C-alpha cells in the first residue's frame, strides 16, 4: 500500500483517528499524555518500546490500552527468574498419536507482545527475544519461523536497583527504539483516578479506533516526512557530541541515530506537521538516547538521563 494512492481525505482521516486513539488511551492512563504520545510515536516509528518504572505505575495498563486501541492480537508474558526460552518462543512436543513432533508456538507469535518485567528473567530467557525483536522471526529446532506482521514488543521493566533483576545487556537495550518512564501522576490525574471507576473495567471498554491498515499508512507517512539538511546537521552534531564527549563511555550507535530519526519523524507526524523540526528531535531524544548512553562506572545505566540532558544543553541547533 503506497501513500500516493491514498486520498487526501483519507490521510486527514488517519490523522483524526490517530488523535482519537490517543484520546482514548488518555481516558485509561490518566495525565500521561506525553508518554502516551511517545509510546504511539514508537509504534509509528516501527520500533519496540521499553517502559521502565516502579511497580504499579500503569506500565501494563498503558501497554494493554495501546493493544486494544490498535486492535492488535495481543499476548503477554510475565518474565520470572525461572522462565525458559521455550516459554517464550514455543517448543516441539511429541504427539503420541501421530508419532511426530509438533511445534507449539509460544506467546511470541502475536502482533503485540507484552513482555512484563523483562528484567526479572535470566539473560538466557531475555535473549530468546533478541532474534524476534530485530529480525521478526524465531528459530526453533533449527527452523526459522516468521512472526506475524506487524510485530511489536512492549516490554516493561523495574528499575535496576530493585531486587531480583537482571540488567538487560546493551545489545538488547539498543533494540528498543524508545524507553519511557511514566512517573507518578500529578495531583489532578491521581484524584481523577481515585474518584473514577475501576480502571480495569475502562480498559475492557476501549474501542479499537486505529485499525492496522490505518496504522501502516501512518507509518509510511511518517517515513516520508521531510528531514531538512540543517536538521540532519543537528542530529549528526548530537551523535558526534555523544561520541566525542569525555562523559560518555560510548556514544550513540548508527542504529541509535537512525532510531532518533525514526522517532522524530513519528513525533512530527503526531504533531501534524509534514516536516521535522528540532523540537521534535528534542522531544524524543531522552526516550531514544537515555538507554543507549552510558557514562563511566555506570553499571546501572542511569547516567544516561543526565548525559541526554547534557547533550540537549550543549549542542547548538544551528551551527
Amino acid at each position, binding site marked *: 500500500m503506497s501513500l500516493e494512492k491514498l486520498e487526501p481525505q483519507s490521510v486527514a482521516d488517519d490523522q483524526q483517528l490517530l488523535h482519537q486513539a490517543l484520546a482514548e488511551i488518555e481516558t485509561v492512563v490518566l495525565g500521561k499524555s506525553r508518554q502516551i504520545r511517545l509510546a504511539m510515536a514508537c509504534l509509528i516509528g516501527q520500533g519496540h518500546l521499553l517502559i521502565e518504572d516502579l511497580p504499579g505505575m500503569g506500565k501494563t495498563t498503558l501497554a494493554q490500552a495501546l493493544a486494544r486501541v490498535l486492535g492488535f492480537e495481543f499476548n503477554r508474558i510475565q518474565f520470572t527468574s525461572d522462565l525458559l526460552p521455550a516459554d517464550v518462543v514455543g517448543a516441539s512436543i511429541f504427539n503420541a498419536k501421530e508419532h511426530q513432533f509438533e511445534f507449539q508456538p509460544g506467546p511470541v507469535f502475536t502482533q503485540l507482545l507484552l513482555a512484563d518485567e523483562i528484567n526479572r528473567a535470566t539473560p538466557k530467557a531475555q535473549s530468546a527475544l533478541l532474534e524476534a525483536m530485530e529480525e521478526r522471526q524465531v528459530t526453533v529446532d533449527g527452523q526459522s519461523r516468521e512472526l506475524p506482521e506487524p510485530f511489536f514488543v512492549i516490554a516493561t521493566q523495574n528499575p535496576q536497583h530493585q531486587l531480583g533483576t537482571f540488567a538487560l545487556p546493551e545489545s538488547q537495550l539498543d533494540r528498543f527504539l524508545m524507553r519511557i518512564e511514566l512517573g507518578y501522576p500529578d495531583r489532578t490525574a491521581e484524584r481523577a483516578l481515585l474518584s473514577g471507576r475501576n480502571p480495569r473495567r475502562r480498559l475492557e471498554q476501549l474501542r479499537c479506533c486505529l485499525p492496522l491498515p490505518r496504522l501502516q499508512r501512518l507509518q509510511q507517512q511518517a517515513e516520508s516526512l*521531510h528531514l*531538512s539538511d*540543517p536538521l540532519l546537521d543537528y542530529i549528526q552534531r548530537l551523535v558526534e557530541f555523544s561520541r566525542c564527549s569525555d562523559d560518555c563511555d560510548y556514544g550513540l550507535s548508527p542504529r541509535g541515530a537512525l532510531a532518533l530519526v525514526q522517532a522524530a519523524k513519528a513525533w512530527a507526524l503526531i504533531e501534524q506537521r509534514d516536516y521535522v*523540526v*528540532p*523540537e521534535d528531535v528534542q522531544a524524543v531524544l531522552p526516550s531514544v538516547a537515555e538507554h543507549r548512553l552510558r557514562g563511566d562506572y555506570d553499571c546501572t545505566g542511569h547516567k544516561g538521563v543526565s548525559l541526554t540532558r547534557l547533550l*540537549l544543553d550543549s549542542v547548538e*541547533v*544551528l551551527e
Partner: protein
Amino acid sequence: MNEPDYQIPRNGLAWLLAAMFGALLPHMLRLPVWVTLICLLCGVWKLMVYRGRWHGPNRPIRALLVFGGGAAVFAHYGTLAGPDAGSALLILGFCFKLIESRTRRDAFIVVILGYFVVAVSFFFDQSILLTLYLALVCVMVTAALLGLNQSVLHTRPRRTLRISLRIMGYSLPMMLVLFVLVPRIGPIWSLDLGQNRAKTGLSETISAGDIAQLSQSSELAFRVEFDPGSKVPPASERYWRALVLDNYDGHRWTRGLDLDQREQVDWQNNGNRWLTPPLSGSPTPLSRYDYQVMMEPTDQPWLFGLAWARSDTRGVGATRDFRLLLDKPVARPFRYRVSSTIGYTLDAAGLPAWLHRANLQLPDTDPLTRDLAQRLRRDSSSAADYVHRVLRYFNQQDFSYTLRPPLLSGDRVDQFLFESRRGFCSHYAGAFVFLMRAVGLPARIVAGYQGGELNPLGGYLLVHQFDAHAWVEVWLPQQGWVRFDPTAWVSPERVEQGLEQAMAQEGSFLEDSPLSPLRYRGSAWITQLRLSWDYLNYGWYRVMLGYDAKAQRELLSRLFDRVDLKLLATLLLSTIAALLLGLSWWIFRQSGLRSRPDPLLKLYRKLCRRLARKGLQPEVGEAPASFVRRAAESLPDQAVALQRIARQFELCLYAPSANERDPQLQRLRVQLRRLAL
C-alpha cells in the same frame, strides 16, 4: 637493540623504494655495477625488514657497510671527492640510510637524501627528457614524504601519489618565480665534470693510415643560430674552424706551435696588437655573418667559428691562427656569440719568420712525393697555379673518397699518393700540405666541422660529430692565407651535400649507429620528427639552460631601468610574498565556501542581537523557533509578529519546500523589517 624499531608506514615505504629506484636509474649507466647491485640489495633488505622476515643491520654490520662502501668507492675511483666518486658515495649513503632508518627522523633524512640524489643527476645531464623524468621521481619522493606523514592505515598508494602531484602542481608558480628571479651567481666552486665524457669527433692529432675505419658519431656537436638579418652561409662556405695542425713527423700531424697559451691569446678585442693578426682588404657587408653557437660540452677549450671570427662573449679569446678559444675547458653546454667576416685577406703583408718557419716544417720522408711536387712546380707559372695543378692532380687521377681506407706504413704520403689512392679528408689534407711545403709554400691543416643541417623549424644549423672534417690553408704571397679543400676535388658531394651523399655508394654512413634517426634521412617523417625534437631541445637549451645572468638582466631590463642585486632581491621577496598571500587567500576562500554563512543563519543572528537588547538570549541547544516563541511570551506587544516569525523560521529551515526558499526568505526579511523592538 631492545627499543622497538620504527616502521615506515606502508605507503611511505612503497613510494620510498619506488623513488629510490627511480632516482638511481639515471645514475646506473654511470656508476659501477656493484653500486647498483648494493642499492638493489638494500631495497630488498628494507622490504624484508618491513615484512618482518629479516633483521635490520646491527651495529657491526652498519659500520662494515659504511666503511666498506667508502673504501670500495675509493678503490674504484681513487678518490672520494669529485662528482663521480661523490655521487657514488651519496647514493650508497642513501641506500644504507634506508635500511638502517629506525626512527621517524631517520626516515625524513632518507627522503631529503632522495631529493638530493635527484638533484645530483643534473650534474651529468640536463636534457629535457631527463628533466621530465626527474620531475616524476620528485613526485615519487614527495609521495614518500607524504606517506611518512600519513597514518599506517593509509594503504592506497595511488591516492598518496595524487596528493603529491597536486602539491607539485601548487609549487609550480613558486618554482617559476624562483627560476626567473633568483640571482644567477657564478658557481662558487667549480666541479670537474667531464674527464670521461669527451666525445668530440675532433682530435689533436691526425694520422692518415692508422685508421682503417673512421668511426662516426651521430651526436650533436653544436648548433648555430644566425641573428635575424644575417643570412645563412651556403653549404660550401660552412667551414667551422677549431684546430690548426702544423707539425708532421712522417706519421701524424700534431699541433706544433702552441698558440693557446694564455699570454698568447687575445682575450680582449682591443688587446694585444702584437697578437692581432693583420687584416687587409675590404670585404663586402654581405659576407659578414653574426651568429651564436651553442655547443655541447667537449672538455676542450676550442670553440668553433667561420673564418676570421671575433666574439664578444666573456672568456672567449682569439688566437694568432684566427681561432676562438675559451679560457677554460667547455664542461657544460656553452653558448657564445660570434661575428665572422669572410673575405678579409689575412697575413697578406707577409708572415712573421717564426710562423713562416713553422708552416714549412717537414720530415725527411716520402721522396716520391717530393719529386712529384718539384715536377708540378716546374710546370707551373706561379704559386697559385701550382696549387691548382695539385688540386687538378687529385681530381684527375683515380683518387677516391672512402671511410674504409687501407692501412698505410713507411712513407705514408708516397704510399697514399701512388699506391692506395683511397682515403678520407685527413689523407687528402695531409698529402696536400706535404705537397705545398715540399715546394716552400707555407701550409697547414685545419680541423673542424664542415657543413651542417638547416632545421627549418628554428632556422638554425645543426652540426653533428660526423661533420668533422679537415682541410688546408695555404699562405700565398699577396693573398695571405687561402683555404683549399682537396677533399672537395676528389668528392665534391662531401662538401656540397655532406657525408651522407658522398657515402651513398659505399653505404658506410653511420654504419656503427644503426639506431640513429640520422641514418634514415630518406624518410620524410622521421626527418621531420628528428628536426622537431631537436627544435624542442634547442628551445629547452635556449630558454632553460641558457637563462643565465645575462639573459636574466636582459629580460628584466625590459621592465626596469636598472637591474641590480637589490632589485632582484626586492622582486624575489615581494613576488614570493604576493604568491603566498594569494595562496592563503585562496585557501581561506576555499574553506569559506564550504561553510558560507547561510543567509537564514545571518537573519537569525541578527534577530538574536536585537532580542539580546531586550535581555533575551537563546539557550544553548534551543531551536530558533522555540527561542522566538519564548521571546513572544515575554514581549506581549510583539507576540503576534514574533509568533509569525518563529513559524517562518521553521518553514525556511525545515520545511520540504527547499526550492521555494527564496520567496520564503524574502517574506521572513519583510517580517523582520516590520518588527519593531
